């Protein structure tokens, strides 16, 4: 089966912000590693060897690049289409996932929007969560499943997807 990874919205933003994001980051070397990881995963997806899963929440979170003016509304449908790449699957935010996210907030002390990403990832039994913010927490146990939060990379081979 294709290697499936879950992407937090902060990974999409880092990929879109590209090089410019480095200016806002204290650790420039780390920012470079993260950006290269995002680009590698994106490239692997374009080649058909990886697949990105994310929550519908990501669509609402990826709005504009840092410090840029408001987008012309006529371009909004085009931006919607960006998330309909052949290698991206958007998962709905259902009541069940929201309840699971609330458990994550209670158990792991993360913000609600971050918890939605952890919960969606766990709900669909993907154990590799690519995230910049959540990678500091490293591991989440949700409904008996361990979700590993890591910075984006194509080489986390030891993590096996359990999605069946």
């Amino acid at each position, binding site marked *: 089966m294709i290697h499936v990874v879950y992407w937090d919205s902060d990974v999409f933003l880092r990929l879109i912000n*590209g090089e410019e994001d480095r200016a806002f980051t204290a650790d420039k070397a780390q920012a470079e590693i993260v950006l290269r990881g995002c680009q590698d995963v994106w490239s692997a997806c374009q080649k058909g060897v990886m697949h990105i899963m994310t929550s519908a929440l990501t669509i609402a979170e990826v709005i504009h690049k840092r410090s*840029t003016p408001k*987008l012309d509304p006529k371009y909004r449908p*085009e*931006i919607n289409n960006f998330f309909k*790449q052949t290698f991206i699957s958007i998962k709905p935010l259902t009541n069940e996932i929201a309840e699971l996210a609330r458990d994550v907030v209670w158990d792991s002390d993360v913000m609600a929007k971050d918890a939605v990403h952890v919960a969606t990832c766990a709900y*669909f039994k993907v154990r590799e969560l690519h995230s910049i913010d959540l990678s500091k927490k490293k591991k989440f146990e949700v409904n008996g499943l361990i979700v590993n939060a890591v910075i984006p990379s194509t080489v986390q081979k030891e993590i096996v997807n359990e999605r069946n």
Partner: protein
Amino acid sequence: MAIDINKITTDITLEIDEESMSISDYQKASDSFLDLVKEITKNIGQHKASEAWEVRVYSGSVGVGVIPYNGFKDGYRVQGIINQGLEMLSKGLKPLEFTDKAIEHAKGLALSFKSSVAPKIRVWSGKEKSVSIVREIAKTADQLLSPSHEAESSVEGRLETLTTHNGSKFVVYDVIDNRSVSCEIPIEYLDIAHRNFNKRVEVIGVVKFRKDGMPVSVKASKIIPFPNSEEIPSLERMRWLLNGGAIA
């Protein structure tokens, strides 16, 4: 007639200990067994399942077994997954390494020989371990695969298998794992479904979910086609759009 354990020469073996059996019972049991072996083999890696194993039929048709073929090296692993998976299903648990199809095949095996109180069949791992195929396996499979609750939600996948037989329906197949979700649609949606045949769509409606959260079916209230590839912005275009290139 039970199999003579000392004569087992295959890695994974289906033992059929029935005095007499119909052609269809025998065929169903052996097909379910071989399909289970193929499904687990396919799921653990890149192997072409049909070329990984050689089939041996035991004298008197008391058993069907498989041995690795064409240099297939993961036979031991497949053996372990099948043994443990059947064991777990018989205890009412979901085997982690069994796909939906594998669970279906295990259920098929457990429902063989309907005339018996319980099928007198076992699956052997080499000569050492065996699992009795009890009806409980079919019960667990039903619990795992049947819908348990419903909610307003959506599913997405490739629209295939459009039919108007007994109502308008199509099946969407998940782009990641090919999992199928059947979608019931009002007759007026036939045209949009037909136009998007073999294309990726999002289907919104009342979704029935299994206990583990996986969608089983949808009573559709909306079908949203995915855009063609030329309508999807590239990463560079997305950067331009969100970088003030498209400001109001």
